[in-house]
């Protein structure tokens, strides 16, 4: 019997996942835009309790298929109890939106917006005191987060997930869906799946997620999907060597030429920095199995799960 099936038998008693759960109450900033509206409704479809409000300055008093729209985040917090914001505003308005969210009492901001100037990101994380007093930014330029069966906050296609013991962390969006689909097809479910974002500077790094998964009773193994650029994977590797839970890693962009920005603002090999070799080597030294293909990720996870003691 696959352990994920075992897990499902015990499922009811587990407090599932990290950062978001069934008590998450989402305000969608930019809800009247094309993408904001589309995805707010999909998030509500996943769990109607979790999407409580939207914000678009100047559109207060309207509603999006029954979701009340406010002019400010503060009103959404006071009147609807929002504690999490999902941001779809245009890139030039994103810094303002993130700082407004925290100033209004929001604890977790999931910033979907792509193309925010890096200095705006640094400034908004600084002003928002990201990481202090339980405050957290996921993203920007990310697909969001889903705790399977409880809440989706972002743009992930929810139909590909199934409940189970594997935590997934990734710098990519669509590549994550690819891996999750393969896991689900093999009968391996997921606890929480987080897209941390493809920008050079992001609020929540691999290490933050690994720390949380290590503490999460519902997670017994983690899949980490990295890519070229930066040192986040190297730092993750050194953290994993002290974890009790097994991690399987994948590094995208192994054949990417140096000096070229591969789509993500953060996916660039500069000089000797950020190469796939360096990341694969760091994982290897930390004893983390590295998959060469997306299919191999699933094989490695399946192999691990049969050895792993399941959450009680």
């Amino acid at each position: 019997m696959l352990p994920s099936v075992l897990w499902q038998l015990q499922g009811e008693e587990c407090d599932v996942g990290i950062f978001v759960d069934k008590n998450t109450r989402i305000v969608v900033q930019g809800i009247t835009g094309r993408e904001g509206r589309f995805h707010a409704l999909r998030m509500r479809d996943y769990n109607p309790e979790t999407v409580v409000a939207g914000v678009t300055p100047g559109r207060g008093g309207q509603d999006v298929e029954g979701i009340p729209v406010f002019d400010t985040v503060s009103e959404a917090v006071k009147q609807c109890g929002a504690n999490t914001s999902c941001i779809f505003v245009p890139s030039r308005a994103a810094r303002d939106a993130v700082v407004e969210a925290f100033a209004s009492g929001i604890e977790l901001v999931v910033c979907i917006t792509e193309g925010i100037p890096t200095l705006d990101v640094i400034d908004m994380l600084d002003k928002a005191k990201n990481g202090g007093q339980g405050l957290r930014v996921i993203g920007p330029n990310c697909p969001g987060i889903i705790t399977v069966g409880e809440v989706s906050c972002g743009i992930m296609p929810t139909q590909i997930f199934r409940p189970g013991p594997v935590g997934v962390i990734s710098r990519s969006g669509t590549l994550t869906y690819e891996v999750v689909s393969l896991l689900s097809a093999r009968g391996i479910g997921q606890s929480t799946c987080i897209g941390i974002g493809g920008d050079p500077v992001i609020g929540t790094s691999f290490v933050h997620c690994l720390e949380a998964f290590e503490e999460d009773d519902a997670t017994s193994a983690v899949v980490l999907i990295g890519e070229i650029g930066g040192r986040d994977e190297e730092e993750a590797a050194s953290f994993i060597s002290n974890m009790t839970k097994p991690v399987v890693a994948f590094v995208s962009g192994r054949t990417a030429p140096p000096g070229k920005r591969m789509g993500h603002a953060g996916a660039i090999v500069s000089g000797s920095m950020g190469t796939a070799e360096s990341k694969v080597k760091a994982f290897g030294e930390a004893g983390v199995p590295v998959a060469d293909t997306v299919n191999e990720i699933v094989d490695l996870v399946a192999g691990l799960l049969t050895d792993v003691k399941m959450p009680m």
Partner: protein
Amino acid sequence: MKLHEYQAKEIMRRYGIPTPKGQVAQTPDEAYRIASELEGHVVVKAQVHVGGRGKAGGISVVKSPEEAKEAASRILGMNIKGLTVRKVLVEQAVEAEDEYYLGVTIDRSRKAIVIIASSEGGVDIEEVAAKTPEKISKVRSTPKEGFMPWQARALALSAGFDRRCIPQVGAYFSYLFRLFVENDAELAEINPLMLTEDGRVIAADAKITLDDNALFRHPEYAELWEAEGDDPLEQEARRRGLTYVKLNGDIGVIGNGAGLVMATIDAIKAEGGEAANFLDIGGGARAEVVQNALELILMDKDVKAILINVFGGITRCDEVAQGLIKAIESVDLDLPVVVRLVGTREKEGRALLSGTSVVAADTMVDAAKRIVAIARGGM
């Protein structure tokens, strides 16, 4: 966006950072004229977006306007690491007693701006960091915190700069930080900062890279945008607003999401093929974007087969399919196409494509296998 040295120096001068006297020239005659207005030794420097100009023969120190003209005619048109030199900077050579490094860039891990000083100027700072890390001093800051001259003086002292120049370095370094923030740079670097015999400092070489995502705040830089040296297809992609990188193979790749496209390229390689490009149609890509992408791929004469790998999240498969059908109708498509389409509205997307000639694949690995087989078979 990388700026040329002469452009970076213009900006630095605006911020009060001294640079050698000089001007940019596009012809040997211009180089002669500029050099004749300078005294003593003159340096002629190729303006290309690549390091190692000196080693490649793109920098020449000369003694007269005639020699400057000769040097310019040799350097202009020269090919340095695949880039053609179209401009040279002709400027006063500086006698240096010592050379330092000043840099401001982004520290990704610490989510901050990092300010770097080293007493080892004029060489690759990465090499210094690797071989003699004790010769590098760093501090971190944010746009909100700023970087005051006293902090700059302390940093320069700890990096081992000559005491005589500390007051000036303090001022110029804080200007460099202000320049970095006000212009939304990714990198602002003076290497080397030269210390002259009389104790003055001067920026002998300068490098600035601007954040593309912030260019909307800086319309003044639109005219500095030079596609010079880029691959013609990359230039066309930029005109079309597509995220595209030219690669060396024969399989055209279109996908959504940078990670997925990179992984697709890796998968093609793993199957023994070689991608012709990286092309990410991005999140929320609409029908016309897909059509636009396919048209661009078809301009690449190296492409023998096309793999389209779309996993819908923010991108809807029906829109991708519509774009594909429009593109196939609008261009004379005689190349084999393998499409892998899953995710949001995939049933609608697949239904739309079922009446066309494209080969459908279920998984990325399956798609990579099929396209490599097709590309091989076609050769």
